[in-house]
Structures are given as structure tokens and as C-alpha cells.
């Protein structure tokens, strides 16, 4: 692609176990205001395109995204779209819009109010509606089946999973937006009781309410705005079969396909933010991406420290962006996922401007 696309602003709310009374609009507005402030614009009128990601079933209301439009100041009307997916895919749609020359800048946001429902059970209704959904097998149990396969085959050990959690909690100490953080040793974590065996509660990302927002634009627009930026040098995604029995759940075929398509050059990644809702899934991703020990993985703590369903993928991109503009990294990888047991995966590569 000829057009250089840059990320110029990112903001994420705190990950809250319960956002209390705040509705979608009230969750989104502070993050929008924050990204407007970062680039010095006043509202969505000042960008060419807006795209959001959300899921009606999280809060149990059809057309949740329609209320989201109330946060934008969409008078006069704006160029706007929505994906019923994580906002990382809204970012993808926005990138296509810029690449085709229909926009120079775009606002992307995702919001999540998962606390009103029973998220793992809500997600059971993503499965095929004849064989699996009627069994109400929740997302945690499916992940547990996946972890067991890995343990049984000796690919990982329970202590490897606990080490992922310990690292997440430790990194999250520095992350004011995190829901869970602290110093935990692997042995402490393994002393905790099993939850859905072999998973312990700490192996599962918490349920969080919140929102995140991002502004992207062409390089010339970023220069016009005169703001620090990170270049989004690649973004791509792949899905795989819905039949869990047909997949090798111990690896991520689709992640590998994206990594190949993007030529991620894992040897030159300073950081990687991976959307692994369960500790063992981070290990799957690290391996599928062939990450090196030099790469700092989930410096934000990742989603084990707070998981804004439908916004977490976008937030991974944002966390990499933040570290690039802060000078802590010059090249980073962000990952987003959708579906049970990492069925659908997106990768984005960011580089210093």
C-alpha cells in the first residue's frame, strides 16, 4: 500500500469490574474527548470517518451501537460504520477507507459493558446453534478443554500458565487502567484452588466494563496536526473453521497465517501486546508468532489484567502505540482475537514514525 497510515491518539478507560450506572454513551465520551484532545480537534466532525466495534448481546440490547452515535456529535451527518466485532476490526475497516482515499483520518472506538450479563454464557451462543449452543458450553470451559490438550501433550505445564499470570499482574502494577495487578509468585498462584480445571480463576481474564478510542490518519495529516505518531505498517487477519474438533487447538493456525502474510519479522519486535483471554492462550500465541525472549510481551499486563470485550483488541494496538510514542519501543506487534479458543486472529505491526 502506498499510503502511510499513522496512529496519532489512543485512550482507554480504566477496566472496571462494574462501571456502575454509566451507559454506553457515558462510557465512550471521556475516551473520545481524550483522543480529540491529543490531536487538538473538537469532535468527530474533524475526522473523515468513524468506525466502532461492539456486541449487542453483551448488554442485552439490540442496536447498542446506535446509542454510541449519540456520543459523536454527528450533526452534520458523518461518514460512519460499525462492526459487530472487536474494535480492532473497526480499525481494519478504517484502514481500508484511508487506503482507498476516502478518508485522511478516522476515529475508531470500541465499548464494552459486559458486567450486566453472564459473559461466558453469552459467548456460548456464538457456537453453532444446533450442536453446541444448546449445550450452553461457556467460553471458560472451552478454553479449559484447550488447556488440557496442551498439558496432556506436554506442550506446557501448569507452572508455565502461572508464570504468564504472574508476569501479567506484575506488569499491570504500572498500568493505572488495569483491574488486576500485584506481585504474585508462581507457587502462590498454583496454591489457589482450581476453577474450571485445569484453569484457575487467575488463568482467566476478568470481566471488565469500559471503552477505548483511537485516531489514525495519513502521514501528511499527522504532520499537519503536528502530533507524535506511530506508523501502522501492516494489519491483517484470518479466521479458521468453526468446528473445534477439526482444529489443532494447541496451536493457532490462523495466527501463523497472518504472521506469514504480514512478514512480521519477530526478531525485530521490541514489544508484543497479545489478546490472550486465558493464560495458556498467550503461550499458544507466543509460539505461533515465534516470539523471541528479547520481545517484551504484554507490558501493559494484557487482558488478564482487564478485558474490555469488544475493545481489548483495539487497546492492544493502543498499548503498542503508547510505548512507541513514549520512546520505549521502536517496533511492536499487536494482536486481537475473536471467537472461541482463538478462532479468528488479527495482527498489526507498528513502527516509530
Amino acid at each position: 500500500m502506498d499510503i502511510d497510515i499513522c496512529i496519532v491518539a489512543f485512550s482507554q478507560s480504566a477496566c472496571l469490574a462494574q462501571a456502575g450506572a454509566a451507559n454506553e454513551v457515558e462510557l465512550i465520551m471521556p475516551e473520545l474527548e481524550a483522543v480529540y484532545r491529543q490531536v487538538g480537534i473538537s469532535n468527530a466532525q474533524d475526522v473523515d470517518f468513524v468506525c466502532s466495534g461492539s456486541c449487542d448481546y453483551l448488554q442485552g440490547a439490540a442496536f447498542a451501537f446506535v446509542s454510541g452515535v449519540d456520543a459523536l456529535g454527528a450533526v452534520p451527518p458523518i461518514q460512519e460504520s460499525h462492526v459487530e466485532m472487536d474494535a480492532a476490526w473497526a480499525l481494519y475497516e478504517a484502514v481500508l477507507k484511508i487506503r482507498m482515499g476516502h478518508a485522511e483520518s478516522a476515529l475508531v472506538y470500541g465499548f464494552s459493558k459486559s458486567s450486566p450479563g453472564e459473559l461466558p454464557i453469552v459467548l456460548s451462543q456464538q457456537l453453532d446453534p444446533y450442536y453446541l449452543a444448546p449445550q450452553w458450553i461457556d467460553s471458560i470451559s472451552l478454553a479449559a478443554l484447550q488447556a488440557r490438550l496442551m498439558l496432556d501433550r506436554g506442550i506446557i505445564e501448569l507452572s508455565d500458565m502461572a508464570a504468564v499470570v504472574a508476569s501479567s499482574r506484575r506488569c499491570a502494577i504500572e498500568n493505572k487502567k488495569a483491574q488486576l495487578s500485584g506481585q504474585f509468585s508462581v507457587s502462590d498462584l498454583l496454591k489457589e484452588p482450581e476453577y474450571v480445571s485445569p484453569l484457575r480463576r487467575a488463568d482467566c481474564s476478568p470481566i471488565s466494563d469500559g471503552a477505548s478510542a483511537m485516531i489514525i490518519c495519513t502521514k501528511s495529516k499527522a504532520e499537519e496536526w503536528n502530533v507524535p505518531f506511530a506508523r501502522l505498517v501492516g494489519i491483517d487477519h484470518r479466521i479458521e473453521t468453526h468446528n473445534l474438533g477439526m482444529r489443532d487447538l494447541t496451536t493457532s493456525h490462523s495466527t501463523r497465517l497472518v504472521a506469514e502474510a504480514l512478514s512480521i519479522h519477530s526478531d525485530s519486535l521490541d514489544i508484543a501486546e497479545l489478546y490472550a483471554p486465558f493464560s495458556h492462550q498467550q503461550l499458544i500465541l507466543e509460539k505461533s508468532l515465534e516470539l523471541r525472549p528479547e520481545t517484551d510481551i504484554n507490558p501493559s499486563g494484557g487482558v488478564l489484567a482487564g478485558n474490555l470485550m469488544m475493545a481489548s483488541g483495539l487497546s492492544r494496538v493502543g498499548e503498542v502505540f503508547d510505548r512507541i510514542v513514549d520512546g520505549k519501543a521502536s517496533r511492536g506487534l499487536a494482536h486481537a482475537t475473536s471467537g472461541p479458543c482463538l478462532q479468528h486472529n488479527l495482527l498489526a505491526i507498528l513502527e516509530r514514525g
Partner: protein
Amino acid sequence: MGELAAVVGIGQTKYASRRGDVSIAGLVREAAGNALEDADLGFKDIDAVVIGKAPDMFEGVVMPEIYLTDALGANGKPMLRVHTAGSVGGSTALVAASHVQSGTFRRVLTVTFEKQSESNAMWALSSPQPFSVHLNAGAGGYFAPIIREYIRRSNAPSDIGIMVAVKDRLHGARNPLSHLNLPNISHQEVEDSMMLWDPIRFLEACPSSDGACAMIIANEELVSESPKPPAWILGGAMRSEPTIYAGRDEVNPRAGRDCAKEVYAQAGISNPRRQFDCAEVYVPFSWYEPMWLENLGFADQGEGWRLTLDGATSLDEGGDIPWNCSGGVLSSNPIGASGMIRFAEAARQVRGDADQHQVENAQLALGHAYGGGAQFFSMWVVGARKP
């Protein structure tokens, strides 16, 4: 406008109140398979899949694209799910087109569907949340007051809605895929049908259908690999505005006017009535034909109904600007697909492939969709000639 792209394959299902013979996967596959066949291609020729539908609550499957990957041949490919309310069929087509126009992909499959028989649309649309008034008796209850205001403003004769209802059903009777097949429908029959949401009668409202619509969109280089004439995408635009704001013109929404203005600018349209050979416009309640004729600039303010009255929008009456030759949303309405059907039927016209509802020598056509409280719009212009 980005790189050139064209529709090289179109596939639809038979629309019906209940497609009891297929699963959800079988329904979308029927449309996708028909589109591939029309384009003389296989799934291996497709680089990415873009799927759209209205709220997941219609079928009670959360993010159904996750389960539909195998049916749509998406494994190992990018798959994107769009949801922009009732306009989703149109916006999905535009997002699919952007996959090609951005130069990112060479050829994509796009599919939209709704299997409304799995639930009850009225329930799904007015699912009772606490703390809110539940007087939204379906979409008709929402749009009826807006139609009433249009009638007041325009002084339109009270039977314009009936005329549209008859005309679109006569168009639909030419289309073997139509859900409603009413070749003998009469003015009297529509007038005598039950008044549901005054001024909307039963036969002035769209049906509730099962169905899916699919298209293959290719870049310039690959257009020649499919045997039938392409429909070149000459323009595409989307606009959104809030459901409610002070001073909002709900009858003639600014988002619709602005969206039309942009898509016309892209496609070089200055006089839509004269330049277009036909249009497929989202008319779920009959009165929306005159309202959109004005909103889209085919007629002056308050004059849209005159085109309907004069038969200008009727294929059977030899009108100069036939609207909804396929029968429109009034003949088939699988909500999530309804917008894409408009886009696809516009493309069929300029490909000269619309069989019994073909407008002779159609060169330029408009596809239109709207959703929410008439606040989300998507439109495209397709043409027979390569720009």
C-alpha cells in the same frame, strides 16, 4: 475513489416467509454458491469474505460469522462482520468494495442474510429493556408518525402509498425470487387491507422474510475472468446522524441528502432523474417512495408523490425512472440482506441480467439502503460502462 472495482457475480436465495428447508448456514451458502456460479468462480478464487446482518437477536446467534466460516469458504481468509442496522446490506457491500478499492484484495465475496422465521422481528426490535416505554409496536409504529408528517407537508393525495404498494408488488410478480407474488393485486385490495399503524396499512408494509444475498466484487484486472458483463462501481457513500436531536428533519433526513450528494459527486450525477435508468431504493413502507424521491433529489420538495402518481417510477407504466423493478423491500424483506438486495439488483440492471424486470438498456443505476430511525444511509452507483 481508489482502485476500480466491479460486481462480477450476484447470487440470491429464493425469499420466503420461512425457508424451512435450510439451516442458517445453508441459507447463506445458497446465495454465496449462486454468486460464485454466476461469476464462474470457486471459493479458492476468493481472497476475503465480508458478511453483514441486522441484530444478532433475530436468530439468537451471537456474532454468527464465527459459525458460518465453513459455509462461506472463509477458513484461512480474512472475514469481517458489518452491522449498521437496516442499512447493513448496503454498508456491507461498500465495506466489501473497499477491500478491493483500497488495493488490499483482488476479489472478495460479500454476503448478507436474515432468517427472520427463527424469531419474531417485532419482538427482537422492541425487546423490553427496563426503564423505557415499550410503545414501539415494531418499525411501523416508529415510521407511521413520520409518514403522517410527510403527508401533511406535501399535501399528497391519501392513496399515494396504496399506489406504491400496488406498483412494487406488480414489479415483484416479475421476479421469481420474490417472497410476495401478487400479480393480481389491486388498489382496492390494498385499501381494504387492515390499517396497522395509521396511515400504514398491512399491504403498505414490507413482509418479514428469510433470505440471503451475495456478490463477488473484483478489481479491474480480474473482471475479465468472469464471463458476464460487470457492474462497475462508480461511487459509494455512507452517512449517519443521531436518532434524535433538536431540529432534526425526520421526514427528509439530512444524512440521506448528504449521502446522495456525495455519491452523485463521485459518479458525476447532476440530475438523478434524467441520468439514472432505474433505482433500487429501500422502501419498507410504501410512503417512503415519495419521501425518498425528494430526499434523493429525483423530485423537488413536496413533489415526490407526483412521480408516483404519474407512473414515472413504474416499469409496467413505462415510467422514465422505474424504482424497485425487483419488487423492492415491499416484496421481499430479509432485513439484514434487504439493503444488499437493492445494491445487487441495481447491479443486475446495468449488467442487463434482470430477466423479466429488466429496464431496457439500463446503463446507470442507484442502490440505496437506510436503517435505524432513518438515520443510517448507504448508497452506491453502478454503471455498465467502465469509467
